[in-house]
């Protein structure tokens, strides 16, 4: 829900069950930028949207949720509690705090391609080995991490039609740390039917992998380059929120991000295979390498349409970066108001991305890569850089209660279908090189004034 920057007009209708303050977005764990987004989110939402939803001054609004996320085939399992609290004073100035924990366990693909025989790898720490059965995509079973993220934000009116916000964030896991800050500004126009928003964020990451930073495109499991590395990211965000009619609200936004520094995944390797047999050969596995900069652009448009009681929420995002990836994201939700104050919300999300220029499911010895000799500038077999389609199907049930409380339960399924790599040589042609990723998530949420 959008905080109103200005005193509520006397003729403004105020809902009786005005619940959670929407400017308190949850903290995404481990990803600082997402937390930084929080502070801007409320501004971007725009006063254009809702006027008159003012929580009682000097009370805390607490939003909490627990997410359980589980991938199939013994891959990642995550348990993620989030607590967010925001207090707004009589002058419409608010402070927010958010704490997120994320406990992750399970297995994660190491980048190597499946083989007709058993493969054995050294763990990132260098202290153990693990084996992958014949025909299976190699997974590193040592995937364990706990993230902690803390966000603090401050938001206030800047005159009758403007608002500003500042936020700072810390995020840490055992091999990664991030600090950042963001500033945002919004301006209401056209009798508050339009809101222009601008935001700037800066983030500093330190990557401190087990076993150190690997030598780029050199044989895997060898000596490291150095202990740690850094990355800086600057993001710009511009948004326009427009009230189209009494029943229709739209948002348009553009986001530009530039990262510089270490962008590789220190735990990912690429297989070197024989061009005829498809079997690993020569150096067998090499450490991946990505460009040391990344420039991203996203265009986003969202529409919310109020029917008699129900609400249709649709959005589309076009994404493009200078790694050669373009992506389309289509999202649709239908909130169905049921008897007894319950609501039911089916959700469908469709996603499609193209592959990065340097995505290589494997490197062919002698052409892509020469063991002990020539290597390409960049190569990664990370499936997140591959071409794939993904579908999310979900259902949420919730009930707003008296006094601004609300509970909700959501169940979703997520499935990624990777494009099969072309020209698989020899034995690779008969293997499932790109198994689908499927996951189920359950989220329980509860909000209350405090």
């Amino acid at each position: 829900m959008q905080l109103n920057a200005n005193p509520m007009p006397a003729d403004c209708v105020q809902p009786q069950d005005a619940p959670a303050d929407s400017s308190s977005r949850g903290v995404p764990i481990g990803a600082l930028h997402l937390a930084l987004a929080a502070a801007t989110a409320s501004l971007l939402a725009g006063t254009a949207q809702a006027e008159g939803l003012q929580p009682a001054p000097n009370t805390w609004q607490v939003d909490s949720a627990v997410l359980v996320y589980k991938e199939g085939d013994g891959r990642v399992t995550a348990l993620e509690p989030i607590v967010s609290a925001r207090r707004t004073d009589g002058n419409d100035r608010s402070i927010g705090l958010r704490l997120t924990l994320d406990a992750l366990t399970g297995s994660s693909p190491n980048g190597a391609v499946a083989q007709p025989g058993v493969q054995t790898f050294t763990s990132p720490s260098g202290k153990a080995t693990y084996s992958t059965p014949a025909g299976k995509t190699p997974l590193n079973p040592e995937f364990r991490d706990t993230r902690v993220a803390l966000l603090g934000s401050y938001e206030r009116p800047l005159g009758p039609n403007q608002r500003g916000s500042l936020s700072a964030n810390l995020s840490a896991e055992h091999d990664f740390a991030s600090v950042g800050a963001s500033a945002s500004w919004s301006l209401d126009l056209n009798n508050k039917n339009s809101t222009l928003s601008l935001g700037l964020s800066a983030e500093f990451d330190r990557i401190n992998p087990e076993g150190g930073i690997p030598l780029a495109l050199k044989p895997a499991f060898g000596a490291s380059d150095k202990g740690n590395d850094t990355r800086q990211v600057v993001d710009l965000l511009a948004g326009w929120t427009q009230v189209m009619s009494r029943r229709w609200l739209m948002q348009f936004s553009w986001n530009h991000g530039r990262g510089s520094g270490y962008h590789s995944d220190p735990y990912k390797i690429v297989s070197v295979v024989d061009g005829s047999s498809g079997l690993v050969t020569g150096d067998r596995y090499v450490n991946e390498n990505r460009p040391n900069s990344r420039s991203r652009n996203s265009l986003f448009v969202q529409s919310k349409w109020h029917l008699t009681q129900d609400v249709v929420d649709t959005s589309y995002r076009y994404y493009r970066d200078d790694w050669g990836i373009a992506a389309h994201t289509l999202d649709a939700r239908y909130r169905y108001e049921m008897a007894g104050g319950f609501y039911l919300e089916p959700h469908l999300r469709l996603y499609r991305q193209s592959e990065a220029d340097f995505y290589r499911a494997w490197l062919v010895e002698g052409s892509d890569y020469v063991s002990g000799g020539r290597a390409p500038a960049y190569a990664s077999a990370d499936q997140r850089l591959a071409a794939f389609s993904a579908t999310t199907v979900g259902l949420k049930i919730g009930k707003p209660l008296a006094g601004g409380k609300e509970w909700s339960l959501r169940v979703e399924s997520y499935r990624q279908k990777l494009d099969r790599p072309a020209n698989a040589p020899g034995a690779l042609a008969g293997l499932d090189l790109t198994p689908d990723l499927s996951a189920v998530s359950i989220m329980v949420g509860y909000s209350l004034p405090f």
Partner: protein
Amino acid sequence: MPVHLFPIQHLRGLARGCLPLLVLPLSACSNLGVQPWERDLLAKPSMQLTTSAVESAADDHTYFSKEAATGGRSFGGGGCGCN
């Protein structure tokens, strides 16, 4: 003999045809928005652009760690230690 690959009358026809298309959005723009007393539906929690902040933040993080695209609605940022 002059050959009219795209005769001028077609342009005129195009202009006549497009004129309403240009004028309609302009006149529509002036009618966009509502009066303060017409914000009853827009003010409902279900009509907020982000209905559950905590939920969308958790979703953003999940998708960030599984897909290449990020940002758009909010800051895209640089990364996490996700593997």
